């Protein structure tokens, strides 16, 4: 597969603070590539260096054969960028805005047709402030496609959306990929990365702690399987036995919810044997989630709560 982005030994420092430390990876043509990590892990910084918005401290970054240090303008004309949160003029209509942004690339566009693709044709004469969160994000993605880019960068495209709007957006992102474009996105929704991304890179404190196909990342994990169930009352004996095959996590809610991460495929039968005599509800055995992998790699859960702006 052809590589469209090549990052080698990239480091970014702000004074004493190292935002990105010596990371290397490549993005292949036509894939959806996810950058995962907590706020402040260095995702956005990495993305913005690739986009030519920030200067790198050390290393090399090549995008579509152009070096970001020497030829950022050529890169900018071939990529599409969507930033975190909306970044649009308050007093221009959607149609005017698409035409305006296209003109920045020396292009003219059929704004109505573009808006039709994201089901916003009726909003052509509306201002961005009159759109719902989901509509705004769809518009935002469309606005990053006005120059028919080869690579599209989406920074947390689904943050703050309701589940339905999020699903719609996934569909849109897949459509973009199916048009032959490469998609690079950041997210802190692990479920989203699992469903959407062909490959993911996990960043932690400016370093890259894992990079692979999503499924393989899970398979390669120390505990690749997860057993979940809900038990009424205490089951200390069974938990004791289960802990021989993996990690037992009791849920926070009244202690009835259990999640057991299991190390070896060969142990799965034994685990089922332990569970069989117990009266439990919602018993399920499935591959571990990307979230489990994330916790195993970084030692903590990703925080989706009150988000602070990612540093610089």
């Amino acid at each position, binding site marked *: 597969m052809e590589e469209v982005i090549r990052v080698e030994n990239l480091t970014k420092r702000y004074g004493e603070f190292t935002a990105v430390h010596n990371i290397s990876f490549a993005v292949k043509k036509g894939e959806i590539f996810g950058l995962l990590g907590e706020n402040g892990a260095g995702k956005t910084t990495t993305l913005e260096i690739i986009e030519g918005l920030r200067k790198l401290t050390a290393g090399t970054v090549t995008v579509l054969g152009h070096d970001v240090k020497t030829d950022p303008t050529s890169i900018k*004309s071939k990529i599409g960028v969507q930033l975190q949160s*909306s970044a649009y003029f308050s007093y221009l209509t959607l149609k005017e805005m698409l035409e305006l942004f296209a003109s*920045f690339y020396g292009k003219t566009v059929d704004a109505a047709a573009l808006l039709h693709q994201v089901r916003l044709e009726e909003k052509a004469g509306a201002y961005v402030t009159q759109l719902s969160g989901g509509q705004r994000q769809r518009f935002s993605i469309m606005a990053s496609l006005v*120059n028919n880019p080869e690579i599209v960068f989406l920074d947390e495209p689904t943050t703050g959306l309701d589940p339905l709007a999020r699903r719609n957006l996934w569909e849109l992102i897949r459509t973009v990929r199916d048009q032959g474009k490469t998609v690079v996105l950041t997210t802190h929704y692990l479920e989203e990365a699992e469903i959407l991304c062909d490959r993911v890179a996990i960043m932690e404190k400016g370093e890259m702690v894992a990079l692979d196909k999503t499924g393989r990342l899970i398979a390669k994990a120390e505990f690749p399987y997860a057993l979940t169930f809900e038990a009424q009352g205490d089951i200390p004996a069974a938990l004791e036995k289960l802990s021989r095959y993996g990690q037992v996590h009791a849920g926070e809610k009244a202690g009835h919810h259990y999640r057991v991460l299991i190390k070896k495929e060969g142990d799965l039968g034994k685990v089922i044997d332990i569970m069989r005599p117990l009266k439990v509800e919602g018993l399920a055995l499935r591959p571990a989630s990307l979230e489990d992998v994330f916790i195993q790699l970084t030692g903590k859960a990703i925080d989706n709560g009150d988000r602070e702006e990612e540093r610089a």
Partner: protein
Amino acid sequence: MLKLFIADLKLQFRNRQSLFWSIAFPLIFTVIFGFFFGSGSMGTGTVAVVNDSTSKMATSMVDAFDKQDAFKVQTATSVDAARDSMKKGKAAGALIIPAHFGDTTPGAPTNVTILYDPGSIQLRAGLDGFVNAYLTEANYRVLKVSPVFGYTDERANASASFTYFDYVLIGLIGMALMNAAIQGVAISMSKYRDDKILKRITTTPLPGWKFLTAEVVSRLIVNLVQITLILWVGIGGFHASIGGNLWALYGLSLVGAILFQLIGFSVAAVAKNTDAAEGMSQAIAIPMMFLAGVFFPIDQLPKWLYSIVQYLPLAPLLRAMRSLALESGAISDNISSLMLVGVWIVVLLLFAIYRFRLTDE
């Protein structure tokens, strides 16, 4: 870039709030000053005239009174009606011509009465002057003599035939340009930065200078609209007379607008967010509005204060604008003011280039 320029114009004319401050606000000032001081407003007030005499002299006095334009004339039926009118604030003075005034019969009254409101000193002086001059003339005629001594009045500066309203009108143009440019640029640039619009622009191949040029030029168009509307209202509605060079006034105004936009960019460069930018631009614009000669000549200020405020960017600009527009002054008469404006532009331009960035890096 044309598309960007047109988009910028739309952005400015669709933003009602900024349109109010840049256009409606100075026009309101123009109209208020026009009502008080414009020559279409009959400047000093209204005089109620009571004429109880039917003599030829009384009639011709009232005729002459009607023709003067120092104050408005209102006819009252009786002295009581005139007093009432003054009490209600409809008139600030009254001229009372008693019955039989001017009759040749013996014992006919020879005095007219002037009533005045102590609050209207200007009107009283005007009314006194008028009546005095008229009666003196009448006395000469009765005595069949002509005056030996007289005077002619002449303005000290022959070319400067401007009124206070004309003076303020130029000040208001300066104020309008200043408010629109400083606040407009500072607030919109900070908001664009807060909303990540500036960053979004840098993700495209559009060079930053093109973006800024379209922004600056579209604002200059708004400035042209401002100047034209203020002049139109001032001259058309209140008979302001801009006796000097109108093109020089426009040209100088745009130079001033660029200076103020640079202040706006400098504020946007140092302000952390939109609120801070708004506060800082007001802190700069409001003192300048009062201390740089918009409403009154700043050489009336205490000397120590004048020695400082004469260097505020708006001060030399207004000096030069008034000289060119009101006194038909030449560019060469205003070298020092123009140089001061130039120095400000260079200093602010250097600062803006050094500090203002579309993105934080």
